[in-house]
């Protein structure tokens, strides 16, 4: 339970820090909205309506959660390094992977704000009827997806402790994940060889659960898979971080100089 408290307190403080930079916050809210706007326009152009449009609205607003993480996850540790706090994190007797969870979780939480903003935008600017069939299940799905995306972001963050150019890879993954995890495009519409990859990515299940809850279908199986894959990432993260931190100590990459 100590672990839970640590993550909770650290998450809260990280959230405080991130939301204090007004301009950065504005960007992480606005940028996904531009994409969502284009997408709303595309759907309207194509004559979509009803559940298809709602699905698209949910998917495109969820894009913001991944944006928030993919763009900042790889920088997270670089920022800590520059601040001089990375060494202090490594010095903690707690496992390093545990300390990273609040970092990416807070990023994903800010992404959730973006999601809410985009849904409101869809409602008021495009007149999309945001009639969520099962609100409780929907909110739960959002929470689980936020968590799953945070875990995926953690894997990116960990690789950057050892590889300084990991940020480029992280930034480049923004759109592939949108595509492959079926945020907007049904997995069945993608080439068949992509499907195993989609299945292994936790956000796929989270987004599917969100869409199910919105359109009145059962989200529980999807949520279960989502938690399962996210937990898998956690295990990988713990193992990989041990190796990475050891390597960083050997090669003296924890500090700037």
């Amino acid at each position: 339970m100590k672990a839970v408290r640590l993550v909770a307190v650290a998450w809260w403080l990280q959230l405080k820090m991130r939301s204090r930079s007004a301009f950065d916050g504005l960007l992480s809210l606005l940028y996904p909205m531009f994409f969502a706007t284009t997408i709303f326009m595309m759907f309207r152009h194509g004559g979509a309506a009803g559940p298809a449009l709602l699905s698209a609205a949910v998917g495109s607003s969820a894009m913001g959660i991944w944006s928030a993480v993919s763009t900042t996850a790889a920088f997270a540790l670089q920022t800590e390094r520059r601040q001089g706090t990375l060494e202090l994190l490594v010095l903690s007797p707690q496992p390093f992977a545990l300390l990273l969870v609040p970092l990416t979780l807070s990023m994903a939480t800010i992404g959730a704000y973006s999601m809410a903003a985009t849904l409101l935008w869809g409602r008021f600017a495009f007149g999309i009827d945001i009639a969520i069939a099962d609100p409780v299940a929907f909110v739960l799905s959002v929470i689980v997806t936020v968590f799953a995306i945070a875990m995926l972001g953690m894997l990116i963050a960990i690789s950057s402790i050892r590889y300084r150019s990991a940020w480029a890879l992280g930034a480049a993954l923004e759109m592939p994940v949108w595509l492959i995890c079926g945020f907007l495009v049904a997995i069945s519409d993608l080439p068949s060889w992509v499907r195993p990859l989609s299945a292994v990515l936790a956000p796929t299940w989270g987004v599917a659960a969100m869409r199910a809850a919105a359109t009145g279908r059962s989200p529980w199986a999807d949520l279960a898979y989502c938690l399962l894959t996210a937990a898998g990432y956690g295990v990988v993260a713990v193992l990989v971080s041990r190796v990475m931190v050891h390597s960083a100590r050997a090669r003296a990459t924890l500090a700037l100089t």
Partner: protein
Amino acid sequence: MNSLRIFFVGGLTSYRALFGWLSPWILVPTFLFTPLFQILLFVYIGRTAGVNDDRFFLIGNAVVNAAVPCLFAMGNTIEGERSAGTLPLLIASPAKRLPLFLGRALPVILNGFLVAVFALVTGTLLLRVDLPPATWGGIAVAIAACSVSCTGLGLLGAAIALRVRQTAVMSNIVLGILIVFAGVNVPLAAMPGWMQEVARWLPMTHGIAATHDLAAGQRLGDVAGALLAELALGAFYAALGLVLLRWLEWESRLKASLDMA
């Protein structure tokens, strides 16, 4: 000071400085991977939305890749010089502003052009889109026109960057506006009237429309009007940028208002 020299040597050096960390791990994802995926993303979204025109999305998103670097190149240079502490040196130099900034933009513009071509070619092969070789020459010209006009807007952006700290935020907002308004993923005709009006004043709008026409088989002569409009817009923004630059520099000598550090 020899303007040509400022143009080429200064530009190349600045480019190398910006990409001092020249590693394939950064080049490949940024310049090859991302543009391609942007195309794939919108093609598939288009299909899901019921708009079954792969070529439309391919062209729009490929051209964006040529234009976007031009938009950011000079602003990023300013930002880079600022964080390296060399901005005051740049501003204090007697070099003529136009070749100074354009020189820094040129390598990036060429970069963007090559990325767009790569994206177009790869996209055509992957999606099995029909783009006959006869159209390639014209398309290249249209893409170049978009690059030029975006460079003009970029010069304006660079001038603003001297005053405003948050270059990255501003640049991304401009990019967002362009993606929404310039007819990249939605044809102009399908947009509400007021959006079309705004679009007419933005770079890329005319150029992208021209590229679509060229791909459909029209000749360069037919789209000349659109391309000229594109270039004219570029010149307009560039002129605005130079005026703003001169005014800001003058103001800074008066009030120390330029954000140098």
